[in-house]
C-alpha cells in the first residue's frame, strides 16, 4: 500500500528517484523518436506506445510533487512548472513539442540546406536553398543601385556607424556635438553622397535605390522628422488657442484615419496632378513626406499620453518660477513626458520600420520588395520561403536592437528610487 501513498517528505527518498527516472525515460523516448526515428517502445501495442511518454512523464511529475521538500531546486521546479496535474501535463506537452520541432527545423535551415553553387539547379537537397540569398544578396542590400557606385552607400553607412560608435565613448561635453552632427548635418551629407550629381559623383536616380539600404534610409529620415512634428502636434492639441488646437486635432485625426497604403498611393499618383506643370518632386521624397506625416500623427498621440500623465503641479511650479510656455515645455514638461512614453515611442518607431515594405505600392523596393521581385524571376521561382524567412530575420534583428536600446534608455533615464 505504501507505493500509492501521497508524495510527501517521508517517502522523498523513494519517490523522487523513481519520478525523475520516469520523466527522463519519457523525454528520452520522444528525443530518440524525433532525432533518430526509432521507437523505444515499439514492442508495445501501437496506441499504448504512442501515449506512453505522456503517461510515464505524468506519473513522474506526480511523484516528485512534494510540498516543502526542503530541496530548494525541487521546490522551485514544482512551483513553476509542476504545481498541479494540469500544469504537469502542459509542461510535458511543451517539452515534447519543442523536442519534436527541432529536427525538421534543423534539417531545413542547415543540415539539408544548400549553400554551394550559383543557380537554382545547384539546390538538390530537401532543405532551404540559401544559394538564392547568396546570389541575390547584393540586390537585397543595394536594390538596383549600380554596382560600381555602391561604395557610396557603404561609405555613408560606415560614417554613420563610426560616428555613433565613437559617440558612445566620448565625454558628455562632446556628445552634444555628435548628436547635432547626426541630426542636422549627416542626413543631408549622406543623401548627397548616395544620390550624387555633384562633386564629380554620378547621379543615381532614387528609383534605382532599394534593398536594405533603402529600408534604413526611409526609416531613419521618417524617424528623424516624425518625432519633432509629433511633439509639436501633441502640444498643439493641448493648446489653449482654439485655432492651433483644432488644426492639430484635424491633422491627427485625418492622418490616423487613413491606411498608410492609401496615403502612399495618393502621394505617388494623385499628388503630382495637383502640382503646377513643370514642377517635379522626387517620388522618394513624396513617399518620405507621406510616411513622416502619417507616423507623426501616431507619435503625437503617444506623446499626448505622456503630457496628460503629468500632474498639474508640474505646470504650476514651472509657471510660478516665471517660465513662459516654451521654456516650461522644453525644460520641465517634455523631458518628463517623453521619458514616460519611451515604450510607446519605441512601439511607434518599430511599427514605422516594419511599415516600410509598403512602399512597394509606388514601385520603390526595399528589402522585402526586392525579395518579392527576385522570387518572381523565372530562374528562381519557388524561392519565396527562403526569401521571406531571410527578410523576417533581418527585420527581427533591426527591431530587437531598437527595442533593447529603448529599454536601456528607459533604465538610464530613470531617476526614481
Amino acid at each position, binding site marked *: 500500500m505504501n507505493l500509492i501513498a501521497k508524495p510527501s517528505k517521508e517517502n522523498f527518498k523513494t519517490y523522487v528517484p523513481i519520478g525523475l527516472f520516469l520523466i527522463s525515460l519519457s523525454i528520452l523516448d520522444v528525443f530518440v523518436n524525433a532525432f533518430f526515428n526509432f521507437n523505444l517502445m515499439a514492442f508495445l501495442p501501437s496506441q499504448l506506445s504512442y501515449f506512453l511518454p505522456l503517461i510515464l512523464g505524468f506519473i513522474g511529475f506526480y511523484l516528485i510533487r512534494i510540498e516543502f521538500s526542503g530541496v530548494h531546486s525541487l521546490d522551485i521546479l514544482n512551483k513553476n512548472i509542476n504545481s498541479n496535474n494540469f500544469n504537469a501535463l502542459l509542461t510535458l506537452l511543451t517539452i515534447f513539442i519543442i523536442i519534436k520541432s527541432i529536427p525538421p527545423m534543423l534539417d531545413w535551415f542547415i543540415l539539408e540546406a544548400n549553400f554551394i553553387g550559383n543557380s537554382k539547379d545547384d539546390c538538390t537537397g530537401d532543405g532551404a536553398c540559401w544559394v538564392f540569398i547568396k546570389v541575390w544578396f547584393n540586390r537585397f542590400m543595394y536594390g538596383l543601385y549600380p554596382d560600381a557606385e555602391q561604395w557610396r552607400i557603404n561609405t555613408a553607412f560606415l560614417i554613420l556607424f563610426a560616428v555613433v560608435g565613437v559617440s558612445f565613448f566620448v565625454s558628455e561635453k562632446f556628445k552634444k556635438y555628435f548628436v547635432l552632427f547626426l541630426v542636422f548635418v549627416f542626413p543631408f551629407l549622406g543623401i548627397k553622397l548616395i544620390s550624387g550629381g555633384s562633386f564629380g559623383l554620378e547621379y543615381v536616380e532614387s528609383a534605382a535605390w532599394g534593398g536594405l539600404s533603402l529600408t534604413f534610409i526611409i526609416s531613419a529620415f521618417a524617424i528623424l522628422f516624425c518625432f519633432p512634428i509629433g511633439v509639436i502636434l501633441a502640444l498643439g492639441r493641448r493648446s489653449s488657442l482654439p485655432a492651433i488646437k483644432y488644426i492639430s486635432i484635424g491633422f491627427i485625426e485625418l492622418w490616423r484615419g487613413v491606411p498608410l497604403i492609401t496615403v502612399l498611393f495618393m502621394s505617388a499618383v494623385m499628388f503630382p496632378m495637383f502640382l503646377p506643370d513643370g514642377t517635379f518632386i522626387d517620388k522618394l521624397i513624396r513617399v518620405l513626406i507621406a510616411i513622416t506625416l502619417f507616423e507623426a500623427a501616431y507619435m503625437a498621440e503617444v506623446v499626448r499620453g505622456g503630457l496628460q500623465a503629468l*500632474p498639474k*503641479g*508640474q505646470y*504650476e*511650479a*514651472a*509657471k*510660478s*518660477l*516665471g*517660465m*513662459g510656455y516654451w*521654456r516650461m515645455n522644453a*525644460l*520641465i514638461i517634455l*523631458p*518628463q513626458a517623453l*521619458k514616460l512614453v519611451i515604450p510607446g515611442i519605441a512601439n511607434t518607431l518599430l511599427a514605422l520600420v516594419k511599415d516600410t515594405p509598403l512602399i512597394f505600392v509606388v514601385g520603390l523596393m526595399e528589402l522585402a520588395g526586392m525579395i518579392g521581385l527576385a522570387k518572381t524571376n523565372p530562374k528562381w521561382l519557388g524561392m519565396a520561403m527562403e526569401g521571406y524567412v531571410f527578410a523576417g530575420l533581418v527585420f527581427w534583428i533591426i527591431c530587437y536592437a531598437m527595442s533593447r536600446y529603448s529599454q536601456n534608455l528607459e533604465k538610464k*533615464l530613470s*531617476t*526614481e*528610487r
Partner: protein
Amino acid sequence: MGKIIELKKVNKWFDKFQVLKDIDLEVAPQEKIVICGPSGSGKSTLIRCINRLEEHQEGNIVVDGTELSESTKNIEKIRAEVGMVFQQFNLFPHLSILDNCTLAPIWVKKLPKKEAEELAMKNLTRVQIDDQALKFPGQLSGGQQQRAAIARALCMEPKIMLFDEPTSALDPEMIKEVLDVMVDLAKGGMTMIVVTHEMGFAKEVADYMIFMDEGKIVEKAKTKEFFENPKSDRTKLFLSQIL
C-alpha cells in the same frame, strides 16, 4: 508705506460658482499675512490669483506696481518676483535638487551657471539641505522636499513669497523643520502670504490674520486681536474648533 500687493473688488467664478467675492486686500512690503478658513473658502484661489495661476474676472490686482491682466509679458515678470510654495512640493522629479534650484535662475533670469549654483547652494544651506544637493527629489523625505521647494523659490530672489498650505501634506514630525525655515524667512524680512492651519506659526510671525469663508474675507485683524478678541461669530466658531 507703499503697498506691494493691492487687490480691489476682486471677483472670480468657476463656471457659475463664485469662489471669490469682492476681495479687498492690501499688503505692505515686509508684512506677513496668514490666511485661514474652512476648506473651500477660497484661500488657495486667492493667493493663486496673486501670481495669476488663476485668472480673476472682475476687479484689479496690482503686484509691485504692475497690474495683472491678459498681457503675457507682465505675468512672467510678476511670477519671477513672486515665489510660490505648494502643498504637494511640485519639485521637478527628473532633475537633481541643485538643478531644480538653478534651472529658473539660468533660463529666466539669465544668470551664469556658476553664479546660479552659488546662489542655489547658499539657499540650500539656508534651509539646511545643502548635503542633499545632488540627490533627486524622489530620494528625499517630505520635509526635505518641501524645504528644497522653498529654496528653489528663494533662488529667484523674489520680493514676495506665497505659501499654499505648505505643511498639509507632511507627516507631523516633519512639519516643524519646514515651519522653522519659514520662521527664519519671516525674520529675514520677506513679504509673506501664508495659507495655513498652523496657528502656532501664525501667532509667532503674522502681522495680520485673515479669516475667509465662502469666498469672502470675514475678518482681517492684527494677530493678537484676532486670537484674543475675534469680532465675527463665524471666526469665533472656527477658532474654537481648531485651537
